[in-house]
């Protein structure tokens, strides 16, 4: 992996995201709105809400992070940029890794900024907010990696946009389990660290595997 072109690609993706702030904003608003739906379903009673809050928080964040994935490679494939990227001398896996990093950098921090809003609507005790931020940060990194592989695999497929969540969400179940468990532990006053470490292990496993899978899919595409 050569450093220069890799960072150039990440910087380019960030610049494009800055020119189209609506895309990141849409993901954040989607996150807040999905989180806001849960109180309507389970009733406004604080104890009922607080019980479902951890799962609701992680699930809505993952759904929101899924939104921009559809165009991750699609836009580049349509306008010819993907050919130029594949011919830049970067390996396809490094290229996918740069895309995943850019997706995480453009969706992760905005989601974290909106987490207090969603957490407050779900009546999550403030003592659990640090754990919630850590859990959402790690699980959105996990989804960025998985989603990049999913986006590369569904590239060029008819109805790829509908196929992508079907492919990615089942694989994201472990992130929901450990993420919600970490937040729940913090709510109950227990240490969230073990669950966060497990979540970190998921990210560490996906870090090399997902770009490799995505790279192989791009090469054959």
């Amino acid at each position, binding site marked *: 992996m*050569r450093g*220069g*072109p890799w960072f*150039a*690609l990440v910087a*380019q993706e960030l*610049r*494009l995201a800055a*020119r*189209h702030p609506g895309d990141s904003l849409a993901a954040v608003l989607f996150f807040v709105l999905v989180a806001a739906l849960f109180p309507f379903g389970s009733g406004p009673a604080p104890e009922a809400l607080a019980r479902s809050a951890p799962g609701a928080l992680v699930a809505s964040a993952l759904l929101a992070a899924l939104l921009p994935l559809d165009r991750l490679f699609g836009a580049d494939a*349509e*306008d*010819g*940029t993907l*050919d*130029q*990227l*594949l*011919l*830049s*001398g*970067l*390996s396809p896996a490094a290229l996918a890794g740069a895309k995943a990093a850019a997706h995480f950098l453009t969706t992760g921090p905005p989601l974290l900024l909106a987490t207090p809003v969603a957490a407050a609507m779900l009546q999550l005790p403030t003592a659990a907010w640090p754990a919630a931020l850590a859990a959402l940060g790690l699980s959105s990194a996990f989804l960025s990696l998985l989603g990049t592989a999913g986006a590369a695999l569904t590239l060029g497929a008819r109805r790829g946009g509908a196929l992508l969540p079907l492919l990615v969400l089942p694989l994201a179940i472990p992130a929901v389990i450990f993420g919600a468990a970490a937040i729940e532990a913090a709510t109950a006053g227990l240490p969230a660290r073990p669950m966060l470490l497990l979540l970190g292990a998921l990210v560490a496993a996906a870090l090399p595997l997902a770009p490799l899978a995505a790279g192989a899919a791009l090469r054959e595409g």
Partner: protein
Amino acid sequence: MLEARDLACLRGERAVFAGVSFRLAPGAALLLTGANGAGKSSLLRLLAGLLRPAAGALLWEGADALADRAEHARRLRFLSPQDALKPALTPRESLAFAARLHGGGGAPDAALDALGLLPLAELPVRLLSTGQRRRLALARLALAPAPLWLLDEPTLGLDAASVSRLGGLLARHREGGGAVVAATHLPLPLPGAAELRL
């Protein structure tokens, strides 16, 4: 420098072409002609290493060119029918990115000047016309030298003045020992080019 031996290409279950062979010396140019769907673009993508040949071999200086595809990619510049431009960026930013992507070589402003785009350097690409976008895509070729240029319909949407600018660019590239393979339906400023009819 580049040699194709009995290349064949499959798209889906259909054979697009088979038995394509040619040799390209430094400074040479090869025009790919043929009806729509004859496989001109597929052959260019195959030469770039973006497609895998169904049969045959592609050799660079006598060795398998596609053994190390990253290495092969660094030898060439590929101009696709799409311009590979982002509407939100300016021409200068687009070229600066292309230069960094190919390892930092080349000055964006000199490349813009070569295609007469310097006055438009700070305008977002979304405001450029079709021909201006094509010129910006061509300006990538002027960034840093690469021995092999693969051009898919390079003059699409260009006016006469821009075609002659491209002619100058192509002539300098060939004088420096570079080779060109171009797919086209229109006459190109490539004197002495061999023609391969697909």
